[in-house]
């Protein structure tokens, strides 16, 4: 390879080093240097010898990187390593905190708190999965909220990147763009909600309930008078000052 070719190879390796930085840290530390070196060898043999055009070479490299990035991140999430693992652990702690009050007084299916279920095993009440809500935009009467986790947003971005990269590699850019658009629309329909805000007050922003009454307290028994009939002794009993129990 001539001097210009060597310079191109060094530049290409520098670009590839950027791609390697996208891999999970553990993978990058273990194999990053080797990957860059192998890339350099591959570049020299493929592009430097004129066997493959630079465009075609980079296309295959990007396709391979896109595929393996997704695979490595999924593996990292499963193994609980690096930031994907930290994110997963944090989400798990968050869920545990949310369901902690329910877990303290566990309720069985039979409705008896704190008792074992079938075969004497303690069946804990599991709160249905809840999604955190983040306000995206807010007006006086409405607010747009995102119901989901940040990690799933990152996964969506990776998925879209993979779809677009695959479309670019295979030459079906239009189809990939349509698929990516459909994924985004489906995601928005599933995760974004428009909430109507109700002013604080006894009746919300609707009409008052029939009868015009405001909040009505439930009927309560009248308090027993300390000097009432219960405390009053019968004439044939002890004089006042000693309590009498009525059965």
């Amino acid at each position, binding site marked *: 390879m001539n001097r210009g070719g060597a310079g191109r190879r060094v530049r290409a390796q520098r670009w590839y080093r950027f791609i390697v930085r996208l891999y999970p840290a553990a993978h990058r530390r*273990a*194999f990053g240097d*080797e990957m860059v070196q192998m890339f350099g*060898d591959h570049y020299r043999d493929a592009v430097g010898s004129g066997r493959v055009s630079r465009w075609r070479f980079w296309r295959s490299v990007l*396709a391979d990187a896109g595929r*393996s990035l997704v695979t490595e991140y999924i*593996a990292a999430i499963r193994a609980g390593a690096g930031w994907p693992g930290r994110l997963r652990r944090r989400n798990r702690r968050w869920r545990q905190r949310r369901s902690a009050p329910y877990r303290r007084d566990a309720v069985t299916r039979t409705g008896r708190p704190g008792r074992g279920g079938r075969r004497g095993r303690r069946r804990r009440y599991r709160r249905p999965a809840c999604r955190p809500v983040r306000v995206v935009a807010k007006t006086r009467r409405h607010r747009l909220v995102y119901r989901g986790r940040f990690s799933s947003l990152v996964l969506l971005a990776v998925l879209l990147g993979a779809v677009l990269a695959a479309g670019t590699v295979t030459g079906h850019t239009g189809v990939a763009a349509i698929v990516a658009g459909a994924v985004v629309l489906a995601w928005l329909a599933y995760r974004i909600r428009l909430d109507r805000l109700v002013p604080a007050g006894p009746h919300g922003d609707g009409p008052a309930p029939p009868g015009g009454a405001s909040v009505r307290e439930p009927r309560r028994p009248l308090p027993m008078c300390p000097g009432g009939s219960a405390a009053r002794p019968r004439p044939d009993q002890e004089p006042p000052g000693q309590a009498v129990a009525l059965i």
Partner: protein
Amino acid sequence: MTKELAAVPLTPAVFHILFALAGGDKHGYEIARQVGEDSLGRVTMGTGTLYGSIKRMLAEALIEESGRRPAPELDDERRRYYRLTEQGRRALEAELQRYARVVAVARRRDLLAST
């Protein structure tokens, strides 16, 4: 089912890497070139795929880092060489036997033109 057979069938990438390493210790790029030669150019293994597979195979003890290195004039210290473990060799044999059984059945049913 024994532990070695539990890993069969292997993924194509793992199979090709084991197959390439059956010929001797190799570093990453040599493995990729050997895979291309063995598959008559039909399989090209990119850097990301290769090292992802190597990582998983190291974890499953199918391959290991080799201590032997070539002559210093041919060697690059930054390279790492890999070799098959006994478990990797057994997994490769089990996979090849599985292929052989499939080919035998295909021959019996005249699904495969005899060469």
